[in-house]
């Protein structure tokens, strides 16, 4: 089916092919008869061999041979010589079939089946493998079979690692060898085996992979191995706390649903009808086991024993980077409360790879509970009027939490040295795509390890320039570099209080909500959310965003502006289902309904991905519309929106608007119009 140049058929060839076909047909029908009548004579078995030699893909014939072998074995009363000769014959048939097609699944599996009967010598099998490796060093069937043989015989991982040494030294352009090396090495590193300490081994591996990358920068064989080494260098196994809200040393104002008595405070104000506020923990990797026993809360706020912690993640998951609980307060008890949080009070917080959270981490904040004075107004929220500039110098950006914990790691030094050394090496490859891309990644990595605010942010210009260069150098992957550029840009914006404060405002219309304006910045991707947990109002309008992936952690968000972006469907807004505070959403002037292909179809919890669906009246009464607008239905019904803007999308119109009103009955404003009841 592959790799045959197209040519016009000539009658001679057609006749020859037809003759071959007739022969094969006859073989096949004779074989079928033998198979169905369970005939396992020598003659019948030989016929199956003839068939498999011509067509090793005739899977039923391999099944037949297994049945024939079992039949023969049952008749010979376990004479080892006879058993061996029967099984040897099978190995011979497999080898001859593989010569026809060395990618035949049926042939390789048959060989494994024979071997699991305890037959054949390991030297023979490894010799066979060497033969096939020489024919095609990328044959994954052979590599898989090698792994099978290695497991059967308990060959050591070190020996197999040496084998990859040989393959790579022979020809660095052997992705399969690099892949196998990564599997073996990661296992040896995880075991802390003799001679496999990361701080010694990883720098050696960098040297090895340089030979691949620097010899031919366009050959991809070493690229992914290098990226893996970078990941091993950067990522500490023990999960660390990255940020929290409220953050350490901060003060927050809490009140009931009404307006605060008093003018603008410099602290974040949180109003709640339910009398509770979120406590958010953001870890550097997905963890499980966050509960009221592993995280303790010490405070005089009443009614907060046995809190329930929830992972902010897809429905199935028990692990997440982001965990939330809600602390109760009573606004008729105005007072200042100190709240002390102890994360990892007892063991139990574990990463998905099985590593425990580092020794307990404590932080303290102050909750200032206020009396509610006036009734809340439910005016329409404007994105243009009613904003004051806000001095955020009092903001603690929490950039130091991870760093403190990281620097406590004993082997932090080798990591920094490795990155510095790589940065120096890759400075040389500046005219190649992989050189620029790797350098950009290395510089980003280095930024994450710096603690000095003054120095931080300076190298982001260089990173942004590298991505701009890559967009020109490798235009096929323009959007990939654009996304990376947006991430680097947001890291730069959030790298210091000073740069972030240029984008921060207060919205008078809603109790001086903290508003972050990131509009008109060509952003195609959201990032640095761990530094933005305090944001209550977010303006991302006039950008190039395709989804709200990442925003689920922003548990305080009550107003979101996504107008004039590139959102194609409501399924792209799935992450907002976790943002329970969201009241105001603007998705006007996007691409919703414009494209036939939905790229977030499976990133949205729905019956398509086997999510439970509790039927409601809308579903019962409008099955057709629910199928037509399924993603709008599932996303909107989980939100408690008061204000929604959807105009300027292809999906907009009377049918869709009236459907929305059914799904969100408590909506007050739609496309700027107040809804009457």
């Amino acid at each position, binding site marked *: 089916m592959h790799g045959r140049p197209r040519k016009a058929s000539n009658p001679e060839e057609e006749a020859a092919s037809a003759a071959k076909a007739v022969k094969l047909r006859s073989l096949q029908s004779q074989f079928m008869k033998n198979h169905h009548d369970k005939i396992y004579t020598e003659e019948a078995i030989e016929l199956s061999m003839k068939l498999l030699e011509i067509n090793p893909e005739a899977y039923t014939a391999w099944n037949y041979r297994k049945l024939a072998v079992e039949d023969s074995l049952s008749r010979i009363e376990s004479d080892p010589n006879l058993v061996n000769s029967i099984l040897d014959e099978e190995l011979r048939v497999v080898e001859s079939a593989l010569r026809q097609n060395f990618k035949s699944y049926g042939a390789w599996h048959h060989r494994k089946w024979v071997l699991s009967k305890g037959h054949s010598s390991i030297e023979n099998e490894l010799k066979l493998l060497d033969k096939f490796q020489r024919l095609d060093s990328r044959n994954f069937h052979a590599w898989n079979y090698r792994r099978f043989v290695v497991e059967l015989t308990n060959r050591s991982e070190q020996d197999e690692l040496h084998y990859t040494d040989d393959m790579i030294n022979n020809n660095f352009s052997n992705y399969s060898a690099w892949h196998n090396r990564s599997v073996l090495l990661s296992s040896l590193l995880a075991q802390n085996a003799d001679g496999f300490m990361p701080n010694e081994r990883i720098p050696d591996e960098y040297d090895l992979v340089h030979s691949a990358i620097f010899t031919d920068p366009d050959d991809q064989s070493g690229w992914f191995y290098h990226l893996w080494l970078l990941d091993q260098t950067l990522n500490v196994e023990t999960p660390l706390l990255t940020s929290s809200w409220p953050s350490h040393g901060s003060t927050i104002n809490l009140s009931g649903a009404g307006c605060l008595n008093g003018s603008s405070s410099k602290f974040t104000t949180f109003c709640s009808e339910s009398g509770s506020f979120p406590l958010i923990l953001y870890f550097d990797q997905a963890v499980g086991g966050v509960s009221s026993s592993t995280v303790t809360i010490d405070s005089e706020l009443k009614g907060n024993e046995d809190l329930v912690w929830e992972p902010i993640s897809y429905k199935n998951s028990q692990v997440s980077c982001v965990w939330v609980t809600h602390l109760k307060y009573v606004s008729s008890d105005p007072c200042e409360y100190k709240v002390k949080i102890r994360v990892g009070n007892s063991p139990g917080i574990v990463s998905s790879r099985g590593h425990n959270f580092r020794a307990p981490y404590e932080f303290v904040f102050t909750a200032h509970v206020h009396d509610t004075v006036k009734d809340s107004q439910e005016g329409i929220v404007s994105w243009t009027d009613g904003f004051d500039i806000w001095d955020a110098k009092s903001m603690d950006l929490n950039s130091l939490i991870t760093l403190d914990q990281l620097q406590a790691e004993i082997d932090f030094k080798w990591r920094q040295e490795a990155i510095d050394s790589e940065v120096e090496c890759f400075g040389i490859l500046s005219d190649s795509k992989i050189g620029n891309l790797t350098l950009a990644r290395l510089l980003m990595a280095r930024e994450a390890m710096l603690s000095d605010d003054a120095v931080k942010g300076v190298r982001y210009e260089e990173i942004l320039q590298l991505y701009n260069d890559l967009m020109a150098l490798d235009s096929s992957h323009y959007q990939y570099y654009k996304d990376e550029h947006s991430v680097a840009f947001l890291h730069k914006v959030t790298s210091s209080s000073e740069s972030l404060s240029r984008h921060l405002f207060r919205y008078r219309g809603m109790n001086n909500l903290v508003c972050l304006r990131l509009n008109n910045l060509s952003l195609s991707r959201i990032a640095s959310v761990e530094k933005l947990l305090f944001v209550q109002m977010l303006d991302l309008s006039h950008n190039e965003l395709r989804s709200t992936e990442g925003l689920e952690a922003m548990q305080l968000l009550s107003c979101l502006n996504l107008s004039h972006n590139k959102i194609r469907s409501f399924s792209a807004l799935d992450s907002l289902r976790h943002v329970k505070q969201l009241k105001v959403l603007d998705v006007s002037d996007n691409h919703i309904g414009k494209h036939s292909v939905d*790229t977030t179809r499976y990133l949205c919890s729905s019956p398509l991905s086997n999510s439970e669906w509790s039927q409601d009246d809308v579903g019962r009464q409008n099955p057709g519309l629910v199928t037509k607008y399924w993603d709008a239905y599932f996303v909107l019904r989980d939100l408690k929106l008061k204000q929604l803007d959807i105009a300027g999308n292809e999906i907009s119109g009377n049918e869709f608007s009236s459907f929305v009103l059914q799904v969100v009955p408590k909506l007050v404003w739609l496309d700027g119009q107040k809804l009457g009841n």
Partner: protein
Amino acid sequence: MADKLVADKHLRYILNLMAEKKKESFESVVMDHLRMNGAYWGLTTLSLLDKLGSVSEDEVVSWVMTCQHESGGFAGNTGHDPHVLYTLSAVQILALFDKLNILDVEKVSNYIAGLQNEDGSFSGDIWGEVDTRFSYIAICCLSILKCLDKINVKKAVDYIVSCKNLDGGFGCSPGAESHAGQIFCCVGALAITGNLHRVDKDLLGWWLCERQDYESGGLNGRPEKLPDVCYSWWVLSSLIMIDRVHWIEKAKLVKFILDSQDMDNGGISDRPSYTVDIFHTYFGVAGLSLLEYPGVKTIDPAYALPVHVINRILFTK
């Protein structure tokens, strides 16, 4: 150089293949055992071109049913042994014709569920070959039949995740090299079971987008291999499921697929000027569907069936 999809030529190519021919070529006899797959490829292509009505539904459906074994599984053709590969294709064909109701769902689903192993993996048949392709097949098939609860989904998912490699891709078994075909199977299975959060989308997305060949615009299946039209499906559908398809240059890929057509006789080949076959014809058209090529209906990237078929099945309570 081609500048359009010659749908009529492909239609005729497919209909010729499906009809009984007096003169048989060696190539077709040698593929006799996978006719069920071939039928699925051909019929789904027809459906995407809105020409499913060109075949006799009754003929196809009754032939499909002759391939069912007493075990409940389906064979690749009449007389052959059952295997999950052909069981999925059979169920997909019936779904296309909206004829799933003729199935004894208990029987088929029990056949598949019975092939799950202790570690959560799936065997292809009673002879025990294990491969993540079979995990995808089991999950896809049982989801279409709405019997996913017959298997241990958690273990099935954990097994698939154990086949995740350090480059973000997936192989056929734990430790096996990443390959676009296996990646499609694993990502598809994780998509259907609502577990895409177990995929590192950025890491895998970059590996996948680097499959695009700068010169031809075609996609290969793994590093340093030649581009091939079939990867327009395996790589593309994977990219779409993880929302990273904007990382490749779509226009160039459309051109590669169109250039691989046989403009005279119909059919699509693995690359320009090579021999056409039904396999690449289907993957070429399916790829064009994912690239929103006009005149081609939308295909679901996880179930590999038209979206209107999947929506009809899964949104009916």
